């Protein structure tokens, strides 16, 4: 699969790198880390409330480098994909009903936007919360659609700084994929992720 990235990169100056995953997997934290490392700025707001990212956010011309090799990407932080959006879940975080419903409406539009973006990306980082069971149907739907569209993906086992993280479950559940374990929050092992992306060119 990474061979395909390599062939694509040889043909193109930059590609569209989509950051996918379920809500609160750490997509924006990861996108911020990548953007901070190579552009010096963050691209999105992080929150413990699910669906904080409700519109796709783009950082353009991010030159991801490792050991002298580099690749230019337009980094797209996607809204989380979910099959349900219950406004009452947001009220548990202190939002009033009106705020919660508005957030839920925006979240449903975000889910649709993230799915539509699948037609426009060249490479995906599929982010997993390593403290949770990886065989979630949303993850299966994301990976199934990427495979059907022949879009290469690197699985990112995030939150490995937490003691309950079990990134090995992700490797066991998806044996055909390249899996990189990181803590986007602390920046742990990001070099391996940059290596996985940059070495493919």
């Amino acid at each position: 699969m990474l061979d395909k990235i390599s062939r694509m990169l040889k043909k193109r100056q930059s590609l569209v790198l989509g950051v996918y995953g379920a809500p609160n997997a750490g997509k924006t934290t990861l996108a911020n880390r990548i953007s901070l490392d190579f552009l010096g700025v963050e691209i999105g707001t992080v929150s413990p409330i699910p669906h904080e990212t409700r519109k796709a956010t783009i950082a353009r011309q991010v030159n991801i480098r490792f050991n002298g090799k580099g690749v230019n990407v337009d980094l797209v932080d996607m809204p989380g994909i979910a099959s349900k959006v219950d406004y009452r879940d947001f009220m548990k975080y202190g939002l009033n009903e009106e705020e919660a419903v508005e957030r839920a409406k925006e979240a449903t539009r975000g889910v649709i936007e993230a799915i539509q973006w699948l037609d426009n990306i060249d490479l995906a980082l599929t982010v997993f919360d390593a403290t949770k069971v990886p065989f979630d149907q949303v993850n299966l739907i994301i990976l199934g659609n990427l495979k059907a569209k022949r879009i290469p993906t690197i699985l990112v086992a995030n939150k490995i700084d937490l003691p309950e993280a079990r990134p090995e479950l992700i490797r066991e559940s998806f044996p055909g994929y390249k899996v990189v374990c990181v803590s986007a929050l602390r920046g742990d092992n990001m070099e391996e992720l940059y290596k996985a992306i940059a070495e493919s060119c």
Partner: protein
Amino acid sequence: MKIDIISEKVTRRLSPNDKVKMIIERVKGKSILVLEERLKPEEQAELIKETMLEIDFKEFNGIEVITFNGEKKGGKITVVAPSDIVAVTKEGDFISLMYVAGCTK
């Protein structure tokens, strides 16, 4: 709440769009659907998109969906349920449907 078990003979005759519409309509009507087929990833993505458009932030707040591959050819199912009524989980070869506590529907 009721459970609809739908044969592949029925879904085979439907276009992907009509299949998604049929699923949404029944799930919004508080049915748990057991389809005798594994929905394709593209169909599941379409199902999620349509679900997002149908969420009314009152009675219908989304779906639970899960697919299952059996050992034998044709031994595949998809379960779709209203998330306000049941939570669906899959562990190994077991699919569990759990009534959502506090639900009055």
